[in-house]
């Protein structure tokens, strides 16, 4: 709602009273008008204290933009995809892939070590070390409500629909986000014979919704 695409790497976002946005620190390229930027803890305080700061590289610091004007957002020349949430569905995305989103969206951060069941990112893993091996970030954000979210990707973003009779298998390093009633589980890659070490894991998306996949196996 209101996010304007300037080109594949830059978004122009209007900011106004009651229409604040949260964005990744360092993503502000320029702005017009009277806009103030302040740092916030990601996830509304659910990750705080020493854990949050130790892992600040993963759970990227966010900035709130307030005031009245327009802000140009882009991050390191990466491309983005905009998802407009209508209130009925949840978007699951690695926290450090968030470029910018409406501040009024509900956002919860789930560390990989504390998995919820039923929807969201159910990885079935027991240790954060696996997160490092698969290239997956250690924090996942779950966003819901009515508003827009821009997520970062390297290369183009493919939108693949997931249906009950048609699951999609995704390379963990190419996984960008999932939307809807989608369960994403991490498992061993049984379809690769004599695979190289990089291909040991795969993500299987089942249920009903959409997965967003980037055209690159590089997790930026």
């Amino acid at each position, binding site marked *: 709602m209101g996010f304007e695409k*300037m*080109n*594949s*790497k*830059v978004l122009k976002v209007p900011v106004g009273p009651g229409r604040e946005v949260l964005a990744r*620190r*360092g*993503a*502000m*390229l*320029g*702005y*017009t008008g009277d806009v*103030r*930027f*302040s*740092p916030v803890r990601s996830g509304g305080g659910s990750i705080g204290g020493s854990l949050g*700061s130790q892992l600040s*590289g993963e759970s990227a*610091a966010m*900035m709130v933009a307030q005031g009245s004007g327009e802000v*140009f957002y*882009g*991050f*390191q*020349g990466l491309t983005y995809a905009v998802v407009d949430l209508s209130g009925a569905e949840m978007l699951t995305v690695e926290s450090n892939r968030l470029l910018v989103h409406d501040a009024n969206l509900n956002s919860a951060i789930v560390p990989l070590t504390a998995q919820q069941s039923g929807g969201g990112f159910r990885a079935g893993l027991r240790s954060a070390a696996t997160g490092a091996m698969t290239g997956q970030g250690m924090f996942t954000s779950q966003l819901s409500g009515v508003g827009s979210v821009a997520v970062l990707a390297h290369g183009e973003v493919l939108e693949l629909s997931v249906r009950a009779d048609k699951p999609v298998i995704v390379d963990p390093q190419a996984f960008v986000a999932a939307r809807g009633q989608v369960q994403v589980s991490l498992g061993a890659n049984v379809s690769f014979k004599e695979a190289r070490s990089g291909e040991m894991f795969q993500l299987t998306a089942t249920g009903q919704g959409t997965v967003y996949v980037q055209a690159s196996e590089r997790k930026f």
Partner: protein
Amino acid sequence: MSTQPLSPMTLPVDDNINPYSFCIDLHGEWFMQKGKMIAYYGQMRFESLAATSLSAMVAVRFSSPLYSRDWIVAAGQGKLILGDRGYDLNAYDLDNGNLTIRAANLSAFQPSLSLKQSIVPGFVTLIGSGKFVASSNGPVMFVEPPLRVDPDALVGWADCPSPSHHYDANWMSGFLQAAQGFFGRNSGEERQFDFTGTGTVLMQSSEAAVHDPSVLRNIESQVPLLGQPDLRTLHTRIGQQLQQSQQ
């Protein structure tokens, strides 16, 4: 399916082939940064500015000793295709105007333009009438002042006054209050270039600046001037920056 083949007859004349490549219809000379040629048809020679037989023309048009070693003259007849590390390339016409542009973002220009070194470090000024080709990390956006821009996203500006630094006072106090512990980390939210007046600002689509080898040369040339205490301070500063950039 596959791309249609191009020939000297069908290549664009002084225009983009696609967002990342540009074709110069050469009949005479063009100034070009080294390393930007990806292919050509025809007869041309490429000479570094110091060694060229066109030194008289060079002396008049290119007055920037700091950058001259990065530039060559392409002379001859044919179609010259430019590409720059996969960056976006765009050509612009300057009509009796002046444009200040980051030196690393300028790829080529016609010798009807004069190039001067700007007092703003890292930038050069083009004056006159003619075409130039600029490269950028992501497409260039044209925005009119008043505007504040992340210095790394700035490509250049035309007609309006040189920018001033702007330090966001709110951000600074917010930062101290939140005690985030970001040591010396400069992101666009903290300091920006402030543009006012009438003109156009060119912004690129990324805060990852195009690599400029002259910045290092500039700093290296000043190192012998530093005494021991300053050298140690610089050493620490470099260490911090390296650590920051690895996060």
